[in-house]
């Protein structure tokens, strides 16, 4: 999306994380989609070890 399109057509928003921003946009009738995502509970080093045990491809 170009800056011109953003100004003319308005933003298309995908919200990840806290709900408040997403809800505020809805209140202002701005279309938005919420992705229900949370960070892992464990440090990235431990998550990587778990993924290796599971056989995930680790970049």
């Amino acid at each position, binding site marked *: 999306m170009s800056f011109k399109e953003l100004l003319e057509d308005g933003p298309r928003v995908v919200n990840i994380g806290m709900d408040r921003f997403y809800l505020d946009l809805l209140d202002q009738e701005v279309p938005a989609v919420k992705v229900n995502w949370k960070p892992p*509970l464990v440090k990235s080093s431990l*998550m990587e070890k*778990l993924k290796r*045990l*599971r056989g*995930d491809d680790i970049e």
Partner: protein
Amino acid sequence: MTLNNIEKANSVAFDKLLRAEPQIVDLGLAKDVIPGFGEKMILHAGPPLTWERMSGPIIGAVTGAILYEGWADTPEKARAFAAEGNVSFDPCHHHNAVGPMAGIVSPNLPVWIIEEKNSGKKSYATLNEGLGKVLRMGAFSDEVIERLHWMREVLYPVLKNGIRRYVADNGGLNLKSLISQSLHMGDELHNRNRAATSLLIRSLVPSLIDAESDNPDLSKVVRFMAGNDHFFLNPGMAAAKVSLDSVGYVEGSSMLTVMARNGTDFGIQVAGLKNRWFTCQAALPDVLLFPGFTKEDVNRDIGDSAIMETYGVGGFALAAAPAIVQFVGGTPQDALNYTKEMYEICVGENKHFTIPSLNFRGTPTGIDLIKVVETGITPILDTGAAHREAGKGQVGAGIVRMPSEAFVKAAEAFVEEYSK
């Protein structure tokens, strides 16, 4: 250990869980039938707990159990009896047993005996007392102790004879089938057991009449069962327990076999980490409160009843129970959302337990430790909440999310175990 092995191990654990066939086979007194039940022993809910760390509802229920057993004749003496180290405390889970809320089991309490048909393994749970002032909520007043004596002296022998007649005529009473039917009748089997209780009574009454038709107490026994919507909860929990026990140790599996709370700590066990507990502080339930109570009255989360969610029902099947959602503070859409969220952290979908409102999709079953820590989604429970002070009873009910720290500890242990 690679993807194939962990996936295969979880598949083995999941299949063992789904193959389990729990059935009611008998009743007995705890001291006579529960393995390793010692003299002056009291079992409690959740992970191991010393008297010094017990919360109000457990202290209240222990006080009531000591009065019921006749080890002391006043509440003050009962507390002193426990504080002086005269009672041996152990978790229900260490004795193939489970108990709702405080989960107290003392030697002379009658218990359900549930057997897993394929393995012959057994599990145990007390008879449900009803709502209000009851031992499992930490109450120990005279009416509580009198009811427990009535249950031992009247309910227990009549029900035992009825069950023995049922088993002689039909074999064990199939609880998996009963749970499956109840999910289609509006129960989620943790906070709503109305359909399951009705089906249990429908199954047992003909045998009760055959066995006890001349007994003037029969009508009182049937009225007691019919007057308690949660009468099924305890054998239902024992059905879940023996099914998860039949999974046992599965090398490489990250599937949970136990979730339990004791009012102080929350603990889990994982199929691939033998019988180790991973614990943290129990959640403080933010639930819908009964009139007259405030948030300050609520005790930390308590009870072995989390075994229902570990089994794939309870909060995980909330979408099946629209009638309960207002009681626990939500809407039918919330119930659907909770169930859908739990699919994210489970090994699979249950082919025996299905949800009509989700086009008969199977309930999310077999909590996967790795998925929990990866997604940041911890299990939700649909549970009751007890007053933090001994003797006050229930203060509310609602949805409680399990704390993450126990899962983090288990994930660290899993990596340590399988990185060798």
